[in-house]
């Protein structure tokens, strides 16, 4: 037996040492309690946030874009159901095997696969990667068949942009994936990050993008540490993009595109009072749907290497010398500046020699003695050489600018070109040389430095046709315009043309100045004279577009042809009388036509440009005739729609 209370000294030592340990324990307790206070009280908020960040994951989805409709409510750009395939990397057991499998099932290219792999690396493992955003039904069902072995992929039915009519590809534009440039230029895209988001690139899709894009929706889930969704916490459906009605008429768009098929060119039609753009068609066209899901390299190459540049909206980006279509404007400028009067007579013998240079009329035999009306009607070049000589380029350019040339006119279309209205100052600045008088003569018949878009020519004609007021084009209903402001102040006049054509119009001058509808004339008689001369050109024998007239009185229109040279005609060629058709395509003349209709109560203006189409009377005018016929046939319908949503219109 061992004594168990051997010295109390031993016990005391144990007690002493235990005391030290107890003190140490107290220190530890303070440490633990302090840490608890720090974590659970002082920094609790921070950790609560971190905990929520752990718990919640957000899946954002792109809202359907607003629909773009024509004036009659026909959908031009809408949305369709598409089958997509999403891949959530963290759900996949073996990612590379899965991708290999998908590659086989969908027959994807190596390039597409490496793009997907790059995308996977660039984002969070729980963010879905879109493997394909537009599966065919066959692919979609094949995927569904193999779905049980494809852990980590999700077939999804979504909506995507679809364009039903290629006639409007240019004016409507197209959407495509967001680029870095888009992010820099469009601030609203900052909050728009979502899988499958598309952004407007051109045309109205671009102009209206910030509203039409809608608001991104999200689903927030509580997820566990393995990324498995436990429950839906909140859902925000987002907001569908705003839909827009435009002033376009899809029927006319289709007809115009049909008429331009196989040709390169553009047709513009607008309301001469409201400025409503009714038609804006460019040819050849392209399939905008290809851009929605990413255009293939092959298709892209085809588009950009095409001779006739299908991607260019020639109505606002195509630049052409106006040719003889400018003659009405030259006449107005000369008359308004009192340089000549309508009675001035000039002899045309087919050419004229001035400043040691020979200037030719298109009619080799010459027009004989011509006054201004006949000169417009038969498009005598020699007469206008003389008018231009007396007028001078600077006064002409001033008038041209007033009537809408030389500047962008359709708001919000970044692709629109300004064109060129030449004058002495312009030449000095841009070319660095002095102006030659000979150049004034060429400018008098719309040749030389002039560069105009079909839209500008249409607007110029509208401003002449409405009696000389500075109507401005618009394309989106509900957008503030001069007309809408005017109508507001006038307490909804039944229609602007009614107002123009009643005695009220006497007070119009003052009102328009108030409202910004500015008369562009000094003496409206000068405008009316040109309109009447245009009537002669179309409806009287000998007129340049007589062959394209419409006989019915209410359909009668008035217009001016134009044939713009794209090359310098040598004396030799003139002697040989080489026909336009015999020239290589690139050297053939552009065919132009501008008109307004109906003549008696003008409502619409039109411009037609056919690249390398030969003379204006041969190619452009017959096209215009068909468009005008349809346009006037559809006018009552348009008027009816207009009356019905007048309130919305303003």
């Amino acid at each position, binding site marked *: 037996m061992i004594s168990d209370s*051997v010295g109390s000294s031993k016990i005391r030592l144990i007690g002493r040492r235990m005391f030290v340990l107890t003190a140490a324990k107290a220190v*530890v307790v303070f440490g*633990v309690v302090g840490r608890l206070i720090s*974590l659970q009280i002082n*920094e609790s908020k921070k950790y609560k946030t*971190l*905990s929520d960040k752990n718990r919640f994951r957000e899946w954002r989805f792109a809202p359907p874009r607003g629909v773009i409709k024509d004036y009659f409510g026909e959908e031009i750009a809408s949305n369709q159901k598409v089958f997509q395939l999403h891949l959530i990397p963290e759900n996949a057991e073996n990612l590379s095997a899965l991708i290999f499998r998908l590659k086989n099932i969908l027959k994807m290219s190596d390039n597409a696969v490496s793009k997907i792999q790059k995308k996977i690396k660039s984002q969070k493992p729980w963010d879905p990667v879109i493997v394909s955003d537009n599966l065919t039904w066959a692919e979609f069902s094949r995927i569904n068949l193999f779905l049980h072995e494809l852990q980590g992929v999700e077939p999804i039915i979504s909506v995507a942009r679809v364009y039903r009519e290629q006639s409007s590809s240019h004016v409507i534009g197209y959407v495509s994936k967001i680029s870095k440039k888009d992010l820099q230029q469009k601030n609203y895209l900052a909050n728009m990050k979502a899988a499958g988001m598309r952004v407007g690139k051109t045309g109205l899709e671009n102009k209206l993008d910030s509203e039409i894009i809608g608001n991104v929706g999200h689903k927030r889930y509580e997820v*566990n*540490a393995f990324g498995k969704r436990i429950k839906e916490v909140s859902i925000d459906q987002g907001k569908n993009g705003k839909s827009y009605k435009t002033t376009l008429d899809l029927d006319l768009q289709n007809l115009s595109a049909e008429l331009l098929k196989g040709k390169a060119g553009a047709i513009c039609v607008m309301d001469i009072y409201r400025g409503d753009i009714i038609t804006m068609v460019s040819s050849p066209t392209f399939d905008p749907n290809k851009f929605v899901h990413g255009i293939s390299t092959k298709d892209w190459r085809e588009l950009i290497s095409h001779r006739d540049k299908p991607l260019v909206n020639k109505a606002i980006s195509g630049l052409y010398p106006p040719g003889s279509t400018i003659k009405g404007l030259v006449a107005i400028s000369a008359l308004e500046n009192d340089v000549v009067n309508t009675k001035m007579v000039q002899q045309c013998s087919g050419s004229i020699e001035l400043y040691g240079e020979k200037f030719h009329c298109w009619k080799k035999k010459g027009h004989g003695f011509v006054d201004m009306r006949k000169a417009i009607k038969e498009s005598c070049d020699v007469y206008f050489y003389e008018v231009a000589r007396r007028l001078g380029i600077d006064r002409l350019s001033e008038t041209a600018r007033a009537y809408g040339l030389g500047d962008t006119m359709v708001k919000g279309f970044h692709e629109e070109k300004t064109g060129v209205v030449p004058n002495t100052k312009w030449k000095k600045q841009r070319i660095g040389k002095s102006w030659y008088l000979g150049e004034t003569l060429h400018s008098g018949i719309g040749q030389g430095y002039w560069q105009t878009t079909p839209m500008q020519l249409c607007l110029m004609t509208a401003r002449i046709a409405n009696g000389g007021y500075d109507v401005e084009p618009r394309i989106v209903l509900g957008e503030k315009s001069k007309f809408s402001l005017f109508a507001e102040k006038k307490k909804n006049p039944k229609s602007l043309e009614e107002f123009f054509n009643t005695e009220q119009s006497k007070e119009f001058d003052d009102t328009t100045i108030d409202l910004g509808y500015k008369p562009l004339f000094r003496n409206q008689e000068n405008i009316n004279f040109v309109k009447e001369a245009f009537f002669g050109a179309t409806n009287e024998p000998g007129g340049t577009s007589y062959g394209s007239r419409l006989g019915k009185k209410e359909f009668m229109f008035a217009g001016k042809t134009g044939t713009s040279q794209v090359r310098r005609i040598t004396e030799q060629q003139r002697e040989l009388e080489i026909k336009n058709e015999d020239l290589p395509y690139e050297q053939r003349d552009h065919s132009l036509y501008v008109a307004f209709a109906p003549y008696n109560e003008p409502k619409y203006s039109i411009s037609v440009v056919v690249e390398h189409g030969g003379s204006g009377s041969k190619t452009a005018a017959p096209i215009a005739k068909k468009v005008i016929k349809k346009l006037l046939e559809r006018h009552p319908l348009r008027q009816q729609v207009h009356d019905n949503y007048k309130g919305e219109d303003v």
Partner: protein
Amino acid sequence: MFRSGSIQSHLTLRDKIFSLDLTLTICIFLIGIISFFAMYSTDGGQFAYHTKSHIIRFIIFFSLFFVISFIKTSFWYGSATLFYLGVLFLLILVKYVGLTSSGSQRWLYLYFLNLQPSELMKIGLILFLAKYYHKISSGDVNKFRYLAQPLLALLFPVILVITQPDLGTSFLIAVGGVIVVWLAGVKMKFFAYLGGLFLLSAPIAISFLKPYQKSRILTFLDPSRDPLGAGYQITQSKIAIGSGGLFGKGFLDGSQSYLDYLPEKHTDFIFTLFSEEFGFFGSMTILMIYILITWRIVNIGHTLRTSFGKLYCYSFATAFFIYVAVNMGMVLGLIPIVGAPLPIMSYGGSSMLAIMIGLGIVMSCKIHKDQSLG
């Protein structure tokens, strides 16, 4: 010697029950009850495997606690060396027939439970050393001859456990042993020597560490080093505890644990789960109960008159406290993750068995304090 008479050596069961330390017993029971709820929560609010098995174990081991309490201290004193050697034998046995899990060979398969002998060694070593120092006179304590044996008794199991490998448990075994040696009166200078030796051998020891062990230490020094790797546990645990706030997220509403962000939530990180659901007040409640348990054991030690009893109770109380402190310090991000369970709370039979045996012997000391060890 006069107390070693025969009067007290015949305590009736009734006497024994009445001389149980009520506070300590209630505290153990409370921790048990709390652990049921915590376990129920780790099972996702279901009365599932972990909960059931934890409750059954608690009932068995809590009963065992009483049984051990009612057995004379002299029996425990007498069998201390045998107990130590038995566990040591099991530790060696584990080397050969042990079950391996996550790269560590720690368990013996015993049909009803996978026994982890290293847990039992925590008690075994304290028991053995308490007896050893009880036997030698205070004058001999610092003699070299008497230093060698405890050192060997300590190093042998510690090395066995380190090589399992199980750094956490071997550390806790060593700490328990060192405390007995310290309380027995071994001079400071020997601890200093030992410390110096340890520091010198540290670089060598580190080279023997498994990569995950190294990474744990490095991660502790900078948890953001590898937020999804080894630092993940510390970070997620801190988020869970911190986000609990003052009152907690509510029972079964601990999103961190419920959504599996928390690793090992039913074993080492059970405190984290409880803290998340019951907040600062919950954490403090548990901490206070543990402190109360420690305080009661020390108090029992005060009343004892044998150096064996005193050494054992003081050492066990301190070791118990250190288990708690290491576990809490670990989940609170104060010390590296070493893999130390929270006594009774954590899921794990061997740990609970060891603690209950330890507590049972304490209680036995109290009940039989007036009996001799002979």
